[in-house]
């Protein structure tokens, strides 16, 4: 049994019939053809597949697409068009916050959410907030540094 749904992904309506078992992650990758959202564990732990659903971070690998008819989804591809997201990308580059790049899409989405909620997060807060995203390459040092750098830039922006 398939269900006909429409999900708005990065501003575009994607309409199709999905099986009940189709996850949002598969929907984004296979139907919306956006492969920036990575599937690292497919059981909701590693965080690589994190996307924003109606503005809130969610694990697309354990969220069923059929339950999100009418929702607005933002994936990593769209972050460049968002002030926090764009600053974060730059900060990840400058702080060497990525190596293989596989966890990066989910990291960026989570970090965007951290900075949307915390103006000046401490190292402890950043590490706590990142605890749902696993990175196997960086040891997190430079991801934490990137979030700090981005926070600093966003704050100095506001002062200007």
């Amino acid at each position: 049994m398939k269900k006909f749904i429409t999900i708005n992904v990065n501003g575009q309506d994607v309409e199709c019939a999905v099986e009940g078992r189709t996850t949002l992650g598969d929907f984004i990758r296979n139907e919306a053809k956006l492969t920036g959202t990575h599937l690292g564990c497919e059981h909701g732990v590693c965080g690589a597949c994190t996307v924003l659903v109606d503005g809130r971070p969610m694990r697309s690998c354990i969220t069923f697409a059929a339950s999100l008819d009418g929702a607005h989804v933002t994936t990593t591809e769209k972050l460049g068009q968002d002030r926090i997201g764009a600053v974060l990308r730059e900060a990840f580059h400058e702080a060497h916050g990525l190596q293989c790049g596989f966890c990066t899409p989910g990291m960026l989405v989570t970090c965007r959410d951290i900075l949307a909620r915390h103006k000046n997060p401490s190292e402890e807060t950043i590490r706590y907030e990142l605890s749902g995203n696993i990175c196997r390459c960086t040891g997190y040092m430079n991801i934490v540094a990137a979030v700090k750098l981005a926070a600093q830039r966003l704050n100095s922006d506001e002062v200007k």
Partner: protein
Amino acid sequence: MSKNLGVGASLLRKEDKRHLAGRGEFTSDLDIPGTWEVAFVRSPIAHGKILEIEAPAGFSGHFFTHDDFPDIKPIRSIPETPGFRPSSYHCFAKDKVRFVGEVVAVCVAPTRGEAEDMAQACFVEYEELPAVVDSLQALEPDTVLLHDDWEKNSFIETSLDVGDIDAVSASAPIVIEREFRMNRHSGVPMEGRAVLTYWDHRLDELVVYSSTQFPHQIRAGLAQHLDIQERQMHVIAPDVGGGFGIKNILYPEEIILSALGMKLDHPVRWVEDRREHFVSAIHAREHLHRIKAYADREGRILGVDADVYVDAGAYSHWPNSPFMETGMVMKNIPGPYDFRNYRARSHTVATNKPPIGPYRGVSRPAACFTIERIIDEIAHAVGKEPFEVRMMNMVKKDQMPYRTVTDLLYDGGDYGECVRQTKELIDLEAVRERQKAPEADGRLIGVGFASFTEQTAHGCGEWVTRGVHVIPGFESCTARLMTDGSLHLLVGIQSHGQGLETSLAQVANQELGIDPDRVSVRHGDTSISPFGMGTFASRSMVMAGGAVARACRTIKAKMAEIAAHMLQCKPDQVSFSDGALHGPTGASVTLEQIGHAGYLRQDGLPSGMDPMIEAVETYEPNIATGVFCYSTQAAVVAVTPETGAVEIIDYAVVEDAGTLVNPMIVDGQIHGGVAQGIGTALFEEIPYSDEGQPLATTFADYIMPGAAEVPHIKIGHMCTPTEHTEYGMKGMGEGGAISPPAAIANAIRDALSQTGAELNETPMTPRRVKAAIDAAQSKV
């Protein structure tokens, strides 16, 4: 002076842009029309005979077993080591299964979901045999045999006896006798394995995309196992989401997908799920060391006697056998220490578990754990600070180059100074001061050190002595100046996070003065670059960097001649910088002018010169035994005695990797390595039940270190350039992962020094720490 963009510059990475934009291209991202997906039927039992494989009617053409591919050769890795018992690892299990997760059949369907549905509908009947899950039990005479034609469950036994350990044991005043265990775990890259294959009719070749660390070796390996000429194999490693050694073997799944790609008239792809990864990708370590170490009353090590057991799983894989782990641990137990009496016996044991293979550090985390725990126990026995005993026993600077008791040739450096600098960085005095008063929260504070040497970038000779049958002794590069003066570097190496697209471009800048933004590094594609061995053994920057340097120098000589011709000077008067070639009078020609002449206007070349500005070169360091990076790491931990919980509150690393090409990338490698080492130390384990069932198959049971568990890591660098490589580089990619288990165990020992509790087994979970505390207290 223009800004340094060459060797020594922390240049930001060229590879970041695509990943940050969500435009990386991993194997699962490929969108090739007509691709069908694959799901494997895997053994649910650890050991048994296959009686019958039954697929529902209608599966024909979509379902394949050994009988459909009888000609695929089994994987047999036979090192040139006498006495080795080779296993026949059939890509599809034939007659018998030997671990949970072994491939029995494969299903092909338009989508992954449908393929998985099919796999679930298949029925396989087994006659179960007892499972062999413990390396000591495996060697008992009445234990069932995994491989019927072997006389015991052992790939190989070896021994080593240098000096006179019996004389030492008869007279040494201090004897430390311990058992050390490093349990089975794995590298667990965030991207699992993935393979996509299809027959390209235009080129009449099989295209194989695989998430692998060594595409050229895979090409050779696939050709050897399938009935196909190597010229018709095209292997591509696109973006690869981490490897750490786990993607450094030829997998049965790669061979099966290739066979399917040859048989079917559409592309096929397999994207592994996480459970498959835990049960069928290679595992690592699983060491048991039984040690007797001898010292004098000053704490000087007199000798070590070791029995080493490595639980190698069911099969030996291609190209390296599991003996690499065992052989290396025997050689590395002596670590950076100067002693001349050493005896070791090794057992590479076969059990009903997945094969073990390389994982960052290969055997050295276990070797380091053993010797560094021993150093601390000697220190406790003679009543000295462990760092003092460490420094006292280390190979001294004036002994370099130093040949160890196991015949490793340490090429240079100041090991003791490295310990001293680490002690400063971790501020040992402050920790000792803090320990004088109880902590407000009741936790116990401890500090521990661990040092190691890391053999890197070893050449042909070293691999020959290890008996491997594929010798990764070199790397290659084609340097090609384009008509507009931009540059292609086509390298046989593969980069999956190490940043080689950037650091190799820096080498080109160093040689040619070309802006790294005008350099493309192409890797991971067998049809683009000359043959190369791939990324492992901390070799890539030394080996591929050396090859790039040589290829650039070859075209540089030709470019200088062209410039001299244009500038009316001598070639040796031409200097290269800022994208141009400068003559002695201040006149210059641009790289573009050189490229233009080289291809499009040959009339601008000196007479008699051949067109084209391109060179292919290989490189091997001038010392076959490798160059040794060395390091000391220190951890400060807080232990909660009631629960056994351990928190790392400070961490320091001092390392000497010689000349650093890109210090930012080097530090990133250290961070990542240390985080993985912390996983080994405290969290990661793949235990098996007595029936051979894996007990860690999800990230709920296999705990990966997260941002909250990995501390801020302080790094210090020493720099002793080696004379044996280009620019004095040494490899360093694995080192970070080697020390943490030992440093943390020593820190816990220090924290618990009142009770005398010791942790000699990893991971040091709260349960094990608590048990050690309880055991120590019950002795009091």
